[in-house]
C-alpha cells in the first residue's frame, strides 16, 4: 500500500456550531441521529478551535449548523475568526437575522453571507407561493445588501421544486442576488431517507438545465448562476470534499472533528474530539483523517483506474450507504459492481407520480425515534 502523501494544511475550517434549527428541511445534510449529539462546545472551546485552525493554516472559516444564528455567541466567534485573519463566511437560512445582529456581524468584520433558501414551513410546495417565507427572505436580503455584503443565495433543488426553477431564479433576481447556486439535492442523511420523493426524472433535470441556461444568458450582466448536477444522473463520481482530509476540516457541534460533515456514519472509524487532541494532531496524525487520504486505500476497480487521481474513487459515505462498503468505488460510477443500485433509484424516478410515501421531515423527535430504533 502506498503511504499517503503528507497533506498540506486545510484550507477550510467548517464550524458547525449547533445542530439546533428552527426548520425541518427534508433534504437536511445533518446526520439523521443529530438529536443524540446534543452537547455543544462552549464559547471558549470554539475560540480555541478557531485559533488552532488558523495556526494550522486554514484561511476560510465557515459558520454553519443547524442554524448558526441560534448560538448567541456567534458574533464573538465571527469577530475572533476575523481578527485571526480568516475569511469569514456565515451560512444561514436567515431565520432569526435582525438588523441589530447584522450590525454586530458587520462590526465583527464578517466577510460573507450565504443565504440558503430553505422552506420555513412544512408545506414543501408552499416554498414559492408562501408569502411569509418570501417576505422574510426579502427583508433579510435587503438588510444584507444595505450593509454592503453581496447577495449570495443557495437553493437546494429536488423533484418537488425543480419544475419551478424559472420562478426560483426570477425570485433570486428580485431579491438582488448576485450569485445563485442551484444545488441538486445530494442523497445523504435526511435526503437519503426521502430519496424517492426528491429525485427528479431525467426529463425534469434536462428541462431545468435548459431553463437555467436561458436565465443565465438573460441575467449575465448581473447574476452568476451555478447549476450543480446530481452525480446519480451524471454517472460520474465526484471528487468528494476535494479529497478526504485535503481541504476541509469540519468540527461538529460537540467537537468531533471530521473530514466531511457526514463521515461520522462510516463504520470502524473513530474521529477525534477537539477536547482531546489539537487540530494539528487531528489533521496530520489521526487515523480517521488519514484513512482515505490519497489513493493507497483503494481496491478494484478504482485501484487500476485511469480516473483515480481525478475523482479519488468518489464519495466514501455514498460507497458505504449504497454498496455497504466504504472502500468500494462510489456506486454512481458505472464501473462499480453495485452500480445497479443507482440505476434502480434513477429508474424509480422515471415512474410517473413516483413515491407516494410521506416525506420525512428533519426534526429532533424524528431523529430520536430513529436512534431508538437503531435506524
Amino acid at each position, binding site marked *: 500500500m502506498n503511504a499517503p502523501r503528507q497533506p498540506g*494544511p486545510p*484550507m477550510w475550517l467548517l464550524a458547525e456550531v449547533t445542530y439546533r434549527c428552527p426548520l425541518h428541511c427534508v433534504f437536511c445534510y445533518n446526520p439523521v441521529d443529530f438529536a443524540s449529539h446534543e452537547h455543544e462546545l462552549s464559547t471558549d472551546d470554539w475560540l480555541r478551535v478557531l485559533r488552532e485552525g488558523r495556526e*494550522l*493554516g486554514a*484561511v*476560510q472559516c465557515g459558520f454553519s449548523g443547524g442554524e448558526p444564528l441560534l448560538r448567541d455567541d456567534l458574533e464573538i466567534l465571527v469577530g475572533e475568526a476575523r481578527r485571526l*485573519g480568516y*475569511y469569514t*463566511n456565515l451560512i444561514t437560512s436567515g431565520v432569526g437575522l435582525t438588523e441589530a445582529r447584522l450590525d454586530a456581524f458587520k462590526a465583527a468584520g464578517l*466577510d*460573507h453571507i*450565504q443565504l440558503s433558501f430553505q422552506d420555513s414551513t412544512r408545506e414543501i410546495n408552499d416554498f414559492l407561493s408562501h408569502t411569509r417565507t418570501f417576505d422574510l427572505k426579502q427583508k433579510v436580503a435587503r438588510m444584507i445588501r444595505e450593509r454592503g455584503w*453581496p447577495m*449570495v443565495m443557495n437553493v437546494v433543488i429536488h423533484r418537488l421544486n425543480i419544475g419551478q426553477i424559472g420562478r426560483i431564479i426570477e425570485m433570486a433576481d428580485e431579491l438582488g442576488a448576485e*450569485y445563485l447556486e442551484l444545488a441538486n439535492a445530494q442523497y445523504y442523511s435526511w435526503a437519503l431517507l426521502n430519496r424517492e420523493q426528491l429525485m427528479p426524472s431525467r426529463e425534469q433535470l434536462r428541462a431545468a438545465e435548459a431553463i437555467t441556461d436561458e436565465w443565465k444568458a438573460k441575467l449575465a450582466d448581473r447574476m452568476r448562476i451555478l447549476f450543480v448536477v446530481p452525480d446519480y444522473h451524471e454517472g460520474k463520481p465526484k471528487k468528494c470534499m476535494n479529497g478526504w482530509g485535503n481541504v476541509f476540516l469540519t468540527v461538529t457541534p460537540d467537537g468531533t472533528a471530521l473530514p466531511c460533515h457526514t463521515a461520522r456514519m462510516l463504520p470502524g472509524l473513530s474521529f477525534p474530539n477537539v477536547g482531546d487532541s489539537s487540530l494539528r494532531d487531528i489533521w496530520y496524525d489521526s487515523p480517521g483523517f488519514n484513512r482515505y487520504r490519497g489513493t493507497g486505500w483503494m481496491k478494484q476497480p478504482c485501484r487500476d483506474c485511469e480516473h483515480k487521481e481525478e475523482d479519488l474513487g468518489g464519495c466514501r459515505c455514498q460507497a458505504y450507504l449504497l454498496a455497504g462498503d466504504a472502500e468500494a468505488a462510489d456506486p454512481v460510477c458505472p464501473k462499480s459492481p453495485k452500480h445497479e443500485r443507482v440505476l434502480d433509484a434513477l429508474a424509480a424516478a422515471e415512474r410517473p407520480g413516483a413515491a407516494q410515501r410521506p416525506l420525512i421531515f428533519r426534526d429532533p423527535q424524528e431523529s430520536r425515534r430513529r436512534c431508538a430504533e437503531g435506524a
Partner: protein
Amino acid sequence: MNDGTPRLGHGFRFQWEPAQDCHVLLYPEGMIKLNRSAGEILARCDGTRSVRGIVAELEQTFATAGLAGEVESFIAIAVEKRWLRLEQETR
C-alpha cells in the same frame, strides 16, 4: 488605464499567509495564491495610487525600469477577474 486607480474588488481580501509562504487573495469560498510580482503589485492596489504611480514605485523599489507593460497587463487581467476595480479619474 494609466490614470486609473486600482483597488481591491468587492469581497476580496489581500494578505500575507505564513502557512503558504506567499501573499494570497481571499474571496468567498476560495483563495488565490500569488507569486511574488503579483503580490508586490496587489499590495499597492489600495485605491491611493494610479497605475502609473504603481509602476513608478515598483521601478524605484526594485531599481529597475520598463515594468509598465507587465504591470498593466497584470492589472488588466485582475480587473477582468474582478480582483480589482479600476476607478478612472473623473474630470
